[in-house]
């Protein structure tokens, strides 16, 4: 029997979130409360989150360089060559190399020491695959956030007219937001990714010393494009930002070391 308080509560104002830890970060899956009730939302969320978590763990098991037994670690040690690698490994390797060409080297799947490192792609790939799984489960409205990289579907409210609103951390003061961007719903982009040198900057190899971006946020239709371009712009600086804005349908917000901003028109108030 529905409680009166549930009925009185405006729909779409509440959310349920499930979190788990993987790939060195925390992944949050958020559903808006459905009209069916909070408990039902909670149950559906738990089931969906389990699917997403399994997917992340499988990919992490294959691609993590922190796991000595992973396929990626065996490749790095030379015990395995790409010729003998799994189809999944080779597909990601091919995809990463395509991005290296598209970004003229600003994004690279290899560390300076030559070790293959697909970690710059795998988290976004996991988010992309999780999104497909959620759609396959019939979930329409959700927000998936993996360590600050976001993919959404549908809207946060009961109707289709609202977009999710993603806040962007101010790298100068991480307790504050520097901006926000609408994703999903009627908005142009469904994905938003931020890269920077603030927390795990060591995974970005700067190819041009001219770049002084400490944080770059890219919104795009898909999470892989958003994530890779964000990484590439931190690495490649202003020339890469211009290339990205010209070539892809993206919105970009970049923060200089002195805290000043550079943005494409999509971020202008």
């Amino acid at each position, binding site marked *: 029997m529905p409680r009166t308080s549930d009925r009185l509560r405006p729909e779409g104002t509440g959310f*349920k*979130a499930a*979190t788990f*830890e993987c790939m*060195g*970060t*925390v992944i949050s899956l*958020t559903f808006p409360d459905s009209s069916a009730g909070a408990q039902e939302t909670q149950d559906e969320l738990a089931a969906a989150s389990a699917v997403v978590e399994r997917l992340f763990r499988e990919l992490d098991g294959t691609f993590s360089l922190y796991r000595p037994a992973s396929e990626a670690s065996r490749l790095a040690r030379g015990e395995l060559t790409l010729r003998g690698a799994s189809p999944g490994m080779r597909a990601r390797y091919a995809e990463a190399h395509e991005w290296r060409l598209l970004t003229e080297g600003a994004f690279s799947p290899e560390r300076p020491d030559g070790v293959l490192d697909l970690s710059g792609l795998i988290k976004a790939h996991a988010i992309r695959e999780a999104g497909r799984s959620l759609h396959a489960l019939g979930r329409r409205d959700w*927000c998936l*956030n993996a*360590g*600050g*990289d*976001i993919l*959404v579907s549908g809207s*946060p409210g009961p109707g289709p007219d609202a977009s*999710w*609103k*993603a*806040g*962007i*951390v101010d*790298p100068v003061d*991480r*307790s504050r*937001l*520097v*901006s*926000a*961007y609408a994703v999903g719903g009627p908005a142009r982009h469904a994905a*938003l*990714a*931020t*890269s*920077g*040198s*603030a*927390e*795990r*900057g060591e*995974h970005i190899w700067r190819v041009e010393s001219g770049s002084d971006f400490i*944080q770059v946020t890219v919104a795009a239709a898909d999470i892989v494009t958003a994530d890779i371009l964000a990484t590439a712009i931190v690495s490649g600086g*202003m020339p890469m*930002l*211009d290339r990205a*804005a*010209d070539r892809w*349908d993206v919105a*970009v*917000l970049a923060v200089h070391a002195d805290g*000043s*901003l*550079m*943005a*494409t*028109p*999509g*971020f*202008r*108030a």
Partner: protein
Amino acid sequence: MKARGTLAAALASAGILLAGWQAGTQAGGVSTLASGTTSSGTTGSGPTAAGATGASGTGSSGTGASGTGSSGTGASGTGSSGSASTAAGTYKGSAVQTRFGAVQVQITVASGKITDVTALQLTDDDRKSVQISNRAAPLLRSEVLSAQSADVQTISGATVTSNAYLTSLQAAIDAANL
């Protein structure tokens, strides 16, 4: 990119227009105008530009000035024998669809010379004006889309480690929704 290509192509075609006029003057006869892009219809008084209907630049990849401009189909002009000095007015090109919405270019001609090229902004699907260029520019913090923590449902930041998550804004939001 398309928008700038269009603009550049318009400049190129305008140059060809001028060349056409000059050729016409020299020959003392009817000139043939080759126009690469966009000009169709006139709003000004220039009689010699009436024939400048070109193929609009809707190539799938951003072509530069030389590509689009020189390969234009260029309707044959009705160019009168008028000398270049009589050409004057403003001429609007046709609207061209780009991924930022429709764009349109206008040139202003005085004494046979282009004195101004303006990119007219049309509308996008939302009926709001759009920026023709997606280029990034410096913005003051007061000029970006702003947000209060209470207004957002999720937080994007540079890759948050598991430890950093504990003190992050995202953790606070998740905690409120758990």
